[in-house]
């Protein structure tokens, strides 16, 4: 017996003891009908080959370990960025349990969201009654200022009409007639979570600007000097929005963040649970129509939203999740151009510090090869940053990336001498990435938590940047945008590089001559 009260062993060590090891070996041998170990080894090696890669890339129907989620997740994410807003997902209830768990596991925060709990009878007769009862319950129990409705694939397949259902619910008195219930159809079988973000945000904007589904006059745009900012689906939303607000303040810019998740995913532990925290006020959401321009930090999260905003007469500008010097330069200069505000010296100093840091460390990154996967905009931002560090983003993969996205990534490659041997993979998954890492190895992999399986199997060290990050804590609190954010990304990459150098040079009397104290 290895367990003791003094030194309690949990799963990390307990099962390595001889009793358990013998038990498990016996279980396998006697009862699991295991494959011949030689055969397992043969297949394991075969799965590393170019031949396997070819078969793997010939897949037409099967998806293995995708790097994307479904639409309603994005809809829920953006909804809680509005003041006092409860996301209400019309359809099966299990979906909502999944979104809430997913967001809580990443942010280590509560995630409030309700479902209309449709079951078999609703599948036959439609979910109108679920909507009527659900809105009334949510309104009474959780006293939200707004209920933002989206859909699961169940409601989409049976064709429930949100506009009509919400109208009927109001007639039945579920919520007051003038109460804000924006909605968006968010079928899980179209696009991904970033599409859902886009659809839901568009739904909210159209609600406030275009007459609240025919129940109020459309707003008349009276241009002012404010600008709107949209972050997109962003695992770093807490740190990023805090940083963006700091920059706006520094520049003296009057702004509205549309979908302000900064506080709701970063509430204090002080004895009180805040179901709602911060967020874009409903008044600001409506008044955002008058702004001079709207800036989206992630083009592929706002493909439908930006044209709607543009059609109301505003300038719209989209970035691709800018990370690093040139990306941030373009963002800051666009801010200055649009608002007419000068770029303060403080920002120039911050920029200089980032350039300084890169110069100090560049020798350790220059020429290193990276594989990147993640959402389309994040991939673009990171690939650009790596290129300006003199590194090579050899494989860039987005499961939810389109052909147009791939062309854009290719343009980024083509603009840099370091992009010559780099390739982009739209619509591929992490099992494709596995083949890439075996057949065209790189020095480092950048991705979310699921990348740890690739790290284990291929030996490529994983740098965790993306969403979700379940197995490291608090990364979402640190920005990756702005010059400050660029510094954070740089340090995250460098830490891994130095750890790897040390790990590869620490064998006494073998390799530890390079185990340098100064690097």
């Amino acid at each position, binding site marked *: 017996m290895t*367990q003791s009260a003094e030194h309690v062993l949990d799963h990390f060590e307990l099962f390595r003891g001889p009793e358990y090891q013998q*038990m498990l070996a016996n279980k396998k041998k006697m009862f699991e009908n295991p494959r011949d170990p030689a055969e397992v080894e043969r297949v394991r090696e075969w799965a590393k080959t170019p031949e396997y890669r070819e078969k793997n890339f010939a897949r037409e129907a099967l998806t293995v*370990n995708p790097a994307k989620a479904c639409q309603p997740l994005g809809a829920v994410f953006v909804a809680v960025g509005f003041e006092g807003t409860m996301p209400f997902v019309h359809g099966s209830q299990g979906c909502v349990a999944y979104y809430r768990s997913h967001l809580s596991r990443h942010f280590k925060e*509560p995630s409030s969201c309700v*479902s209309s709990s449709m079951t078999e009878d609703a599948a036959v007769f439609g979910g109108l009654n679920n909507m009527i009862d659900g809105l009334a319950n949510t309104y*009474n129990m959780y006293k939200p200022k707004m209920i933002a409705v989206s859909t699961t694939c169940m409601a989409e397949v049976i064709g429930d009409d949100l506009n009509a259902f919400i109208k009927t619910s109001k007639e039945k008195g579920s919520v007051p007639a003038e109460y804000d219930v924006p909605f968006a159809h968010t079928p899980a*079988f179209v696009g991904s979570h970033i599409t859902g973000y886009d659809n839901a945000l568009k739904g909210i904007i159209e609600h406030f600007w275009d007459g609240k589904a025919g129940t109020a006059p459309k707003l008349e745009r009276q241009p002012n000097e404010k600008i709107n900012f949209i972050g997109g689906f962003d695992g770093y939303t807490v740190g990023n929005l805090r940083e963006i607000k700091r920059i706006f303040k520094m520049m003296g810019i009057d702004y509205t963040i549309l979908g302000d998740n900064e506080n709701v995913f970063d509430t204090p532990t002080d004895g009180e649970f805040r179901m709602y925290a911060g967020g874009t006020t409903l008044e600001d959401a409506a008044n955002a129509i008058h702004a001079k321009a709207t800036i989206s930090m992630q083009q592929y999260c706002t493909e439908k939203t930006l044209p709607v905003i543009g059609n109301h007469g505003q300038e719209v500008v989209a970035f691709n999740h800018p990370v690093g010097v040139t990306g941030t330069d373009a963002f800051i200069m666009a801010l200055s151009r649009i608002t007419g505000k000068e770029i303060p010296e403080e920002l120039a100093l911050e920029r200089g510090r980032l350039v300084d840091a890169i110069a100090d460390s560049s020798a350790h990154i220059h020429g290193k090869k990276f594989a990147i996967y993640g959402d389309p905009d994040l991939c673009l931002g990171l690939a650009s940053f790596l290129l300006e560090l003199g590194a090579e983003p050899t494989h860039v993969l987005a499961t939810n990336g389109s052909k147009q996205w791939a062309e854009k990534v290719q343009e980024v490659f083509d603009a840099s001498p370091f992009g010559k041997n780099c390739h982009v993979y739209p619509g591929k998954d992490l099992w494709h990435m596995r083949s890439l890492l075996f057949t065209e190895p790189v020095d480092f992999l950048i991705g979310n938590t699921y990348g740890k399986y690739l790290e284990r199997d291929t030996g490529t060290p994983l740098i965790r940047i993306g969403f979700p990050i379940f197995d490291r804590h608090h990364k979402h609190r640190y920005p990756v945008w702005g010059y400050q954010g660029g510094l954070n990304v740089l340090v995250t990459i460098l830490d891994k590089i130095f750890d790897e150098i040390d790990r590869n040079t620490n064998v006494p009397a073998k390799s530890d001559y390079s185990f340098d104290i100064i690097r």
Partner: protein
Amino acid sequence: MSANRIIEESQMSVTEKQSVAEIKARNKELIAEVLQVYPEKTAKRRAKHLNVHESGKSDCGVKSNIKSIPGVMTIRGCAYAGSKGVVWGPIKDMIHISHGPVGCGQYSWAARRNYYIGTTGIDTFVTMQFTSDFQEKDIVFGGDKKLAKIMDEIQELFPLNNGITVQSECPIGLIGDDIEAVSKTKSKEYDGKTIVPVRCEGFRGVSQSLGHHIANDAIRDWVFDKINPDTPARFESTPYDVAIIGDYNIGGDAWSSRILLEEMGLRVIAQWSGDGSLAELEATPKAKLNVLHCYRSMNYISRHMEEKYGIPWCEYNFFGPSKIAESLRKIASYFDDKIKEGAERVIAKYQPLMDAVIAKYRPRLEGKTVMLFVGGLRPRHVIGAYEDLGMEVVGTGYEFGHNDDYQRTAQHYVKDGTLIYDDVTGYEFEKFVEKIQPDLVGSGIKEKYVFQKMGVPFRQMHSWDYSGPYHGYDGFAIFARDMDMAINSPIWKMAKAPWKQAPKPFLQAAE
């Protein structure tokens, strides 16, 4: 004696003074209070799910396994979660296709800590996400052809898989796909390969629970009933062969259970389903006894094996030394003296460890109160383990329990006056905890941060908060350590800023 200590003791004595009658009155008042928030119709429905337990009653006096009410923030999941997430997902040498859009498989990907040994991606596949990633055209034209092609691609790229299951997501049943036909055709094409279609669409039933049942039935129909009776056994039977049913090996639970059964002289021929394999499922009808931990999710198949193969089944509880000893003796009672002596030997062997664990942790946990809200067996099964540490469970409820769960709870576990809440809503749970102020809440990831924000210590009792195992004697040491760590963490004293603490009376007097 420090001031803090005095305050703590005076608070304790206040609690002690509360009689059961007072607690019952308070809990009843509390139920009436939370119901006020609901519209009338909802209040009426929810009232049936909330109660104060009266000792001597045969159940907890609540309705259960009824549809959740729209819009109330139920904690429940769906049938897919019950089948793919619970029953089938852990079977390690089969590939489980999340059939439909990408999300369901993505959110449940490796989230349940079903430990297993194997070379992932080569001969085992538990922590992978296989999906048919439905697109609009699949909804419009149907997904059967795609499913067939997926099976071909699986055969090509993962040749050492021992079987395939199709875990249906909502759209499958709505668009009229015939996954059974595809499965049969492909099984024939691949020499009788085990391919199991599972109709666990998320809209079926009222919670995970129906998914368990559907998954159990799928094993019956597509594994048991397909076994060729002429196939020679893979091993020689012994009189001591048992199968562990309803242990998902979360953090290694089934392993720290198996070791005890083997130490007492039994031979475990199958694990359902944590670290389980198709061969183990197929061999289970040869067991002499099925020992059932999670009654809720696997009583169906246990009853079936009893009827069809004459295998008796026996519920057990491996949380905490009292229940473990009771369970080992109960299991042994199905066997001869050799096994009965074995059970005594195992109990004696671990007694010193248990004594040491309790000596270390009980003084730090004595008198602490707990509120639970979990799924499966845990709302009752863990009560004994808390009591072994001198703690008291003052409120409990099931996410997806049925009346037979509440009967077992009432008859064997909860104390008079315990607050019972079935399919609790976010609002109710928050209010109950706010008023009762337990020293610990045990529930899931969706609840964890809500209560921690309130300054209440919390442990996830689905995933063991990334710790474990909690089953068996080895697990109890970890359980005790973790509960102590949660409750006695210094951080909970810091939740209120010192300048925002309520002024003490003597301070006011000094002013």
